């Protein structure tokens, strides 16, 4: 009998982007491009609402209010600032993985493939879901971590703002979904508030 993989829920509009209909435990998702942070927050939001805890490790300058508007349950979010050395980074991530279902990481420079493998092995053993944010040096993160799903975002249109009038009300984002667990790379259009 084929058994469905254990997943964490994702918001309805993202379901089409995940072949299994949710975040598969033990796997890695990379959010990149110019809406990487917003995308990552959106991806984890439903799971935090459903009772999972989220550890945000080393991601700088996350807008907490934006997280709240993306429906992330802030009462289950913990921000962790890892020590600067590389070995400690791995053990910090491992400790976070022990306690929280969801991990959101910004990968610092200098993390090697061996480090990445240790983190991913831990994630697979503990059945967490790992969301990477690769806004700045996406290709490096991609080659080191070999994510299962890559969501590359590009904003195509900003709504509500004109030359000297209005304010930012939302945006259209093109999401290119690929990765080794995605059978066929596809483009999706999303309307984002925020």
């Amino acid at each position, binding site marked *: 009998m084929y058994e469905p993989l254990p997943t964490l829920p994702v918001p309805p509009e993202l379901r089409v982007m995940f072949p299994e209909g949710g975040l598969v435990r033990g796997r890695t998702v990379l959010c990149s491009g110019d809406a990487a942070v917003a995308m990552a927050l959106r991806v984890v939001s439903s799971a935090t609402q459903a009772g*999972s805890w989220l550890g945000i490790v080393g991601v700088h300058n996350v807008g*907490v209010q934006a997280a*709240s508007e993306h429906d992330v349950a802030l009462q289950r979010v913990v921000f*962790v600032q890892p020590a600067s050395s590389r070995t400690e980074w791995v053990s*910090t991530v491992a400790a976070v993985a022990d*306690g929280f279902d969801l991990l959101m990481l910004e990968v610092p420079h200098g993390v090697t493939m061996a480090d990445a493998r240790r983190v991913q092995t831990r994630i697979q053993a503990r059945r967490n879901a790992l969301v990477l944010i690769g806004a700045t040096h996406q290709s490096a993160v991609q080659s080191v971590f070999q994510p299962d799903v890559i969501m590359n975002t590009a904003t195509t249109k900003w709504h509500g*703002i004109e030359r*000297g009038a209005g304010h930012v009300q939302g945006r259209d984002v093109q999401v290119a979904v690929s990765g080794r667990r995605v059978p066929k790379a596809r483009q999706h259009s999303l309307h984002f508030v*925020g």
Partner: protein
Amino acid sequence: MPAMNAESTRVAVVACPDWQAVAAQCDLHARGQVFDAVAVLHAQRVIARTAAAAEQGVQVGMRKREAQATCPNMHITAHNPERDRLMFEPVVHAIAELVPLVEVSMPGVVVLATRGPSRYVGGDDALAQRLTVIAETALHKLAQGQRIPFGVGIADGRLTAMIAARSAASVGLPRVVAPNESAQCLAVLPVSVLADFAEIDRNVVSLLQRLGLAHLGNIAEIQPSILVGRFGPVGNEMQRLARGLDRHPPIVVAPPPERASTHRFEAPVEDVNVVVLTARETANELVAHLGNHGASCVRLHISLHTDHGEQNDRVWYQPEGLTAAAMAERVRWQLDAWIASRGVTSGVVLFRLSPIGLRAKEGRQLGLWGDSTEADEWASRAIERLTAMLGAESVRVPEWRGGRDPAEVFTLTSAAVVDVERRALSHVTSETQWNGALPTPSPSVVYDDPLPVLVCDARGEEVTVSGRHELSAEPTVVILQQHHYNVLSWAGPWPVEERWWDTSRQRRMVRMQFVVGRNDIATTTRALVVIREHGQWWVTARYG
């Protein structure tokens, strides 16, 4: 003086019914949004509503849809414990000027032992009058003229006093139950008051009703052993409550030796975090010490002293027992409130944690209030471990503060001093917008340290903003980190003026939004939040 029953303390209660809704209403009012009917929702159910909403038939426990259908013009907001606490602080402060040692178990309710104050002002009736005047003045100021319902009740035992205060709130006059009459007073009341006022589980109350025990008098007549046999420890507590006694019996074994934990700093400490983290360590020792004696602390007296001899005392109550993190959290609340009331002129030199109410420890206490999940336990253990690994400043949780700047609305607080498991049951949100705040959606990247940026017009000169908040020219180019971006669209400038009444903390600036694009990479556009302050442009946030 009447004979004191050792098993119950005579207390006065000042209670504002439906405080969560009142706090939300005052908070909205302060931002210029006036609503008569306000309801506060938690887990899709109404937990509090204002008098105007109640008049139209909105009940506590209603679902959101039902409530909206009953009262369509009602403003609905999410539960925000932080807001409840901050808004209530002026009232607590006013009462603390008459009675230095007050207890705040939950926002909206102040409890104080009457023994000293009654003798000071001349009797319970006089005390009730005084408290009424104090609360009325404080609430009047808070509500900017509107009337907030509140009541003052004095009786033997917390439950009776709470109920007296609630009935006083509906009548509008303080209510004093004579000594030793609490039990009679309670006997005729329905058992549902146990759930309403003493946090007894509603399922237990419903079972009592189905067993035919409709009134507290019925419970008081039953032998405690029978109730314990049926309900466990809660049975004993209910029996005690029904008889007008304190919920937890005075501990009969000798109290653990040296119960006060005092910490004296070598030099005055001005950083709240340092005080709170030290308190966490002291609390760890205290909780372990009490645990070794089979006790846990339900009432904690926290005393803070500064270098200039100022002192602040308060009692905190939590019927299921305070954990070390919860104790440190209370220290933080107390210190924050003290600083906000401007009672502090120098650093803290000493704090003392005295457990004044103990209960027998019954295994794991957290389960008593229900819904903490395994995930919450795992998370709180991981937080402990990470804090030990990385230091308290590296493991933080968001807390709502409110503000106009995207970076100010939430602050990050060290997780070691927050009762994370308890918090996981409530919500941390902000859905009320401050006037002058950035319109939603909020930027997903907010810089701790804003980035300097140049905003230029078509001729390459820097764009400036006049005193009337007008731009000197249309912005066309933004130079950020040596990259040139074309301005595709912009909004603002919106003036932001903060704390103009306080010369040392005031801010004047204008805020704008820009959508910019690079020439060379035609597809990438970004939206930025830019401010101009002190003649310089800064990027404070990005829609990332």
